[in-house]
């Protein structure tokens, strides 16, 4: 039997699916609905310093027909009275004693931290999350990402919290920093029980072309927002990996956040070392019901692979994420087109010719417009296989026999790396490149944009 329950730094939860601290966790009503729908835990919308919110709070990036491929907000922490929130925490815990309720907090002075920690502990919270991430509004008041960007300050505050807290503490990090390991390490040195990341990324999602104001527009003006949703997942996963591989951080449990929407996202985050995941945008887009798909997919994956608990595969991708200098320079793949599947859009041709290595040709006489790979020119960059709109039509096929293995690191040790500007050992030497004037000689085949008549 697969068991998807977790014990995250002492916080127990029936599954790894948590709601991130955000509008879906504004109230006890929402959290009870979510638990009923299948979520295992919820990080309450951040409690702390009193705030006033603006109206017009969200903006989004739509890509093609996909709504909210990226999402941003200029909302502050909870603007509801603390006592209401505390009463509701207590009530939720009464109905759902086995689910995880974590109180996200953001205050300023040591006294305030101590006071609010006591209040949420008394209300029955299972854990605390420190919001050092909010990159708009709160940071202008010296909190949120203003702390997340100052490792020393962060360490001090984590220290205060650890002295006061009797329940597990998760430090939530801001991605608005060059090296995520700096605040990561500071939080560990401050004594945190766990880390969560990422909070949102400073962003401008668009400009209104009539009023020249950034979205979301508030009476003719706007401000930077915090970016999240599917678009930020790659950045989040990289930061997760940075922490999960760091020798002094890796033993600290990490809750992964950023663009998670499907079971695949969940599994990827776990493979990179997360042992709980948090979701905001996907729920704001589709409601609590999406957890059905996450749970079913996660269970299926675990059954297929023979895992009993998520700890059986947590971090399993980490050994394969290495530095560039350790990659095998002898590995050689070339594009292969399945002519049966090709629809003749010729996007691979133009992508390779204009955007890569001129390794695809089209035959003017072929009415089906099926392109052909020029293997000698193909550097195996994958571009064509990425632009091809047909499922499994272009595949990258391994051509080397696997017997050779050499890395930049090994070449460096053997003193064999190219080291002058025109070194014969450089990779591009000998690769086919058309001469510049071939561009003018080649009859322009694409008639788009041309007048239909010659006169």
């Amino acid at each position: 039997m697969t068991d998807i329950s977790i014990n995250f730094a002492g916080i127990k939860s029936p599954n790894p699916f948590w709601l991130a601290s955000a509008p879906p966790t504004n109230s006890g009503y929402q959290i009870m609905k979510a638990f009923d729908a299948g979520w295992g835990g919820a990080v309450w919308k951040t409690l702390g310093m009193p705030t006033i919110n603006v109206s017009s709070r969200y903006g989004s990036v739509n890509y093609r027909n996909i709504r909210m491929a990226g999402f941003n907000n200029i909302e502050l922490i909870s603007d509801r009275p603390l006592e209401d929130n505390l009463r509701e925490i207590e009530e939720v815990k009464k109905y759902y004693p086995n689910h995880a309720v974590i109180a996200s907090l953001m205050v300023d002075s040591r006294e305030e931290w101590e006071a609010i920690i006591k209040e949420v502990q008394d209300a029955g919270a299972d854990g605390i999350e420190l919001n050092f991430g909010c990159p708009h509004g709160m940071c202008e008041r010296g909190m949120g990402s203003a702390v997340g960007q100052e490792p020393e300050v962060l360490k001090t505050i984590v220290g205060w919290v650890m002295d006061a807290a009797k329940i597990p503490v998760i430090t939530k990090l801001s991605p608005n920093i060059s090296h995520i390991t700096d605040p990561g390490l500071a939080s560990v040195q401050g004594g945190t029980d766990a880390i969560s990341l990422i909070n949102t990324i400073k962003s401008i999602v668009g400009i209104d072309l009539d009023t020249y104001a950034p979205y979301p527009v508030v009476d003719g003006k706007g401000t930077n927002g915090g970016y999240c949703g599917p678009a930020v997942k790659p950045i989040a996963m990289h930061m997760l990996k940075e922490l999960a591989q760091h020798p002094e951080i890796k033993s600290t449990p990490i809750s992964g956040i950023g663009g998670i929407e499907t079971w695949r996202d969940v599994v990827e985050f776990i493979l990179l070392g997360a042992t709980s995941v948090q979701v905001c945008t996907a729920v704001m887009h589709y409601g609590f019901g999406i957890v059905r798909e996450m749970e079913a997919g996660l269970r299926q994956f675990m059954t297929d692979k023979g895992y009993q608990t998520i700890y059986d595969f947590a971090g399993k991708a980490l050994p394969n994420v290495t530095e560039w200098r350790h990659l095998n320079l002898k590995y050689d793949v070339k594009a292969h087109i399945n002519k049966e599947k090709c629809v003749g859009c010729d996007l691979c041709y133009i992508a390779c010719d204009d955007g890569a290595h001129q390794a695809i040709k089209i035959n003017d006489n072929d009415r089906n417009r099926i392109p052909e790979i020029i293997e000698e020119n193909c550097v195996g960059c994958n571009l064509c296989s990425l632009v091809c709109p047909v499922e499994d039509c272009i595949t990258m096929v391994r051509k080397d026999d696997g017997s050779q293995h050499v890395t930049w690191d090994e070449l460096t040790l053997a003193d064999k790396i190219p080291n002058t500007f025109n070194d014969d050992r450089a990779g591009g030497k000998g690769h086919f490149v058309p001469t510049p004037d071939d561009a003018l000689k080649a009859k322009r085949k694409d008639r788009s944009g041309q007048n239909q008549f010659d006169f």
Partner: protein
Amino acid sequence: MSQYKKPKNEQEFEANFKQKKPLMNDTEAYYASSKCLFCYDAPCMDACPTGIDIPLFIKQIHTKNTEGAAKTIYDSNWLGNACGTICPTGVLCEGACVYNHQNVLPVEIGRLQNYATKSVIESGKQLYKPGDDNGKKIAVIGAGPAGIACACELRTLGYQVDIFEAKDKPSGLTVYGIAPYKITNEEVLDEVKYLQDQLGYNVKYNSPITSKEQLKKLEDNYDAIFLGVGLGKTAYRNIPGEDKEGVVGAVEFIEELRMKHAETKVGDNVIVLGAGNTAMDAASESARMGAKTVTLAYRGPKERMGAYSFEYDLAVSAGVKSQFNASPKEILGNGKVEGVLFTDENGKEFTIECDMVIKATGQEKQGNLLGMIDSLQLDKNNIIQVNSKTNQTTNPKYFAGGDAINGGAEVVNGAYDGKLAARGIHQYLNQ
């Protein structure tokens, strides 16, 4: 058996002749346009007789530059709006869309085209203005698609243009011939008005050119003449009884239908002779007008039908029956038609009763008029011979296009021909 009740008023007529390709709303256009792959040297473009830059205009729709999209369309095709709904897109652009090769429905190019052009027509946005007056005058005979396209292009090049049109409306068969479920009169006329408002060519309605004297006058007063006269009436087939009451030509029947809508008289039991696209239209239209039975009767076997298969399917779906290998021998009846006597492939005779016969047996060519023009070379079917690069005829002053040079094709071909001829005229007059 008949699915359609005889329409008694305009509302019921519209219900029976519901638009096959209705105008897209903004949301449909957003999703439909998102589907286009922006193919390299796109095959859909190649399949469009006017070579519209389809991936470009679809991307423009998607980025909410609808006006730019309309401009892209009109730059290639002066009847972009009409073509969007009436072109047989399944055998043209949409038939060539790469999605077909993986059994995915193609991008709805026609309806997207209609969406973009309709939006500028409705806003009245001026996309073109006449070129600087170059002092030269061109006469256009016929205000059909070919004539209008030619006139528009000539105006952008700075020519004065006078169109002579026999009827009292522009657009030729687009308004008199095309099935009402493909396009409405208003839609056709709105587009033509939109073009005329911007480009300012003159049209003289009710002005058929029928005599040598008239032609002489045009030759004297104009620098060049464009022939966009299309084809003529339904051809006479010499079947005994063709003059009986209740026997009509398809083109004449459809013209009446387009003008009179619900008031058009249709029999209870209709036989349509022929198997081309016009026959399919006439049969579908009779069924939609509430005829109890409609029978398509064709001399040959099914495989030899001239019509597009989707047009045949459309007729069948409207309840039309077909009788293949049926050669009409005589139209029976005492003054009024009562039936048609056929022979089958073995020469065996049989009769089908009816109270109306629609002959969709081809249109006459405009032989009379064309015969009056000096040294104008026609082929044996009275089709005007032209230089395919300029659409110039063998009489250098005359250019031609549309059905008059192709024997009957689509509106889009007329639109291309008219534009090409205008370019040809421009080249000829600037040598």
